[in-house]
């Protein structure tokens, strides 16, 4: 029988010699050009990391191609980044350009460093999950095609980190992204009274609802949803499969902006609602692509250097964000969940637009 609990392969065995020697002794780094990092150690030795984009949903053949490249230029050493990019690790400066050439020839974008748009963290969508309100890989591909130049250059005021999650579970942890793309349902789950009694535990289904919209329906040994209180999060469906919520006509995407994770300059921030709804329009989600690009361009035009999207908005104000982007403000932008009052304006300090 196979051994269990052995854990992952020891990372120490995966490190290229230049890292093994200089582990913990790095002194500084420079971004030589988009996608090319140089780290210099106290010993004077250099490590070069060449970052290439990835669709994340990759075939084994694709991975083998990456391996081929790594073996050819990097003695077989590479890593993935926390945003799904590929980093080729080498210590021979002369191999950088040939490597980049080969990557380009094979269609790999090189970039994602510095003030660029890096890869979009995303999730399963229609490819594998049971609760998506949209696809993940599709909108990401359509959008990256359109904002490709921001990946291979570093011309923005600061990093722009985009993430997509296909439902409110937010596996892509989009809640702290410069721009978040979030799949949403907009209609209440349909309770299947014939199946609930068999497949669902009533108390945990009732407890699953953030807004208390579900109550037990004793007569049917089922549950009932109060349509006025339901905001379509789908959590009941996670707990109780007999309450499907997907709705081809009304599912779609919302856009959130201004989050960040780093502690640099400003503290970490949640993303905030920019656009409550855009339709699912496969295969290329033009409304979504257009909306995100507009936000990026308005930001690029107006923000100061080193200002993340949220920092820019905090400086100029949300009034200005909405007037500059032309995005309509609606009552849906105003919070009505538990901490809503904390978001209401408790001051006469605001701008007219």
């Amino acid at each position: 029988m196979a051994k269990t609990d052995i854990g992952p392969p020891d990372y120490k065995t995966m490190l290229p010699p230049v890292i093994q020697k200089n582990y913990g002794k790095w002194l500084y780094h420079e971004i030589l050009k988009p996608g090319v990092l140089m780290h210099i150690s106290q010993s004077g030795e250099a490590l070069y990391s060449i970052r290439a984009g990835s669709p994340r949903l990759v075939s084994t053949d694709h991975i083998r191609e990456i391996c081929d490249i790594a073996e050819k230029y990097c003695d077989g050493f590479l890593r993935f980044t926390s945003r799904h990019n590929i980093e080729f690790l080498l210590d021979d400066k002369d191999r950088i350009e040939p490597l980049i050439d080969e990557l380009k020839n094979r269609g790999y974008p090189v970039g994602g460093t510095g003030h660029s748009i890096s890869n979009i963290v995303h999730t399963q969508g229609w490819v594998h999950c049971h609760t998506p309100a949209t696809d993940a890989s599709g909108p990401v591909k359509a959008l990256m095609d359109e904002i490709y130049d921001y990946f291979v250059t570093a011309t923005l005021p600061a990093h722009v980190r985009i993430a997509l999650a296909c439902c409110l579970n937010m596996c892509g942890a989009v809640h702290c992204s410069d721009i978040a793309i979030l799949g949403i349902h907009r209609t209440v789950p349909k309770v299947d009274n014939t199946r609930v009694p068999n497949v669902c535990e009533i108390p945990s289904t009732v407890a699953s609802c953030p807004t208390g919209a579900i109550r037990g329906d004793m007569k049917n040994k089922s549950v009932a949803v109060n349509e006025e209180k339901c905001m379509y999060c789908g959590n009941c469906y996670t707990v109780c499969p007999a309450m499907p919520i997907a709705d081809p006509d009304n599912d779609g995407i919302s856009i959130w902006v201004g989050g960040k994770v780093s502690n640099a300059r400003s503290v970490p921030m949640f993303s905030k609602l920019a656009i409550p709804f855009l339709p699912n329009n496969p295969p290329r989600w033009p409304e979504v692509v257009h909306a995100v690009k507009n936000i990026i361009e308005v930001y690029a035009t107006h923000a100061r250097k080193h200002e993340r999207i949220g920092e820019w908005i905090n400086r100029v104000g949300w009034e200005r964000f909405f007037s500059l982007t032309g995005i309509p403000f609606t009552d849906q932008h105003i919070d009505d969940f538990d901490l809503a009052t904390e978001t209401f304006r408790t001051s006469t300090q605001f701008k007219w637009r």
Partner: protein
Amino acid sequence: MANSDTPLLDELEKGKWPSFVKDMKQAAQKNPMARDLIRQLELSYKDKIGHWKHGGIVGVRGYGSGVIGRYSDRPDLFPNVQAFHTMRVNHPTGWFYKTDTLRKLCDIWDKHGSGLTNMHGSTGDAILLGTTTNHLQACFDDLSSAGFDLGGSGSALRTPSACVGPARCEWACIDSLDICYDITMTYQDQIHRPMFPYKFKIKVSACANDCVSSIARSDLSIIGTWKDDIQINPQEVLTYASRINIQKEVCDLCPTRCMEWNGRDLKIYNEDCTRCMHCINLMPKALRPGKEKGATILVGGKAPIVKGALLSWVIVPFMKLEPPYDELKSLIERIQDWWDENGKSRERLGELITRLGMRVFLKAVGLQAVPQMVKAPRTNPYVFFWPEDIKKEVK
């Protein structure tokens, strides 16, 4: 391509960004599961709806986690994805690979699964995307022989992850990789056998830039920092002065405005510095974190379901972190024990603390309240007193 059966997806082969559709087609050429997957996805594109049923529980012997069960809702049309479970494989810490190891993973997956993967999933596992129920055990056996193990799923400790840290980054204040690997190995049982009220995530970033989004995406966040003064190399400051506007780009953006630049000397009032990393980020050759290094420990981060998203909260402003990390592990265990004892089913740590109060949590895990834990003290006057604070009642 004239009569492609995936006309919608074909549109996504166009464009400059690498196409997942190309990869799916590549896999589909040799694998029937991949073939049915892309056909089912095309149907989703047409219908604007997913075609997977609500997941079922499947797994490998001895484990309760690591596999996500999945079944098509149109097995009539796509019989090869009737069952299409993913396996979560724990990547080497920091996602470092030597290609021979990575190739082994590919070979195993070609043998047992669809040949499609996510490199990586958003928790950090290698996601092996789709196999049948009866391949699961065999696949696991092969993975195990090749030195791989599964990651977490369900109400378990999830695969911990770490930033690249000291392997490459000059700012690492802690050994994020070693800490992450140590925790991963210490808690194999908790990863593989769900025993908690809900999922529990740990992520380690070796400095406040937080390159693994630890503060946003983990129940327990470990973030490197330092206690003493930023190290300044005055020579290099001058070099930067010729390339960037130190006053505007560095000093004016310092959140505490604790830097003074007179065109020659850079003075940092370290007692006011909150170690945000900004100045260091901009001038890595001139400024470095201090020498007394350690980590801030935070808890509670999570996505919105159920009670709203949370960013992690500081509970230990500074902890030295050196192997065997006993202080850290003891804290983790005290926290998990308390959570385990008091948490309702599907209640994340942050939600439990919210429900019972930080005061109760701190007392239970034996931590002292300090101002670093809050942005500001309470504004509402609903203050509890412990019984021992109160004078005996006079009858």
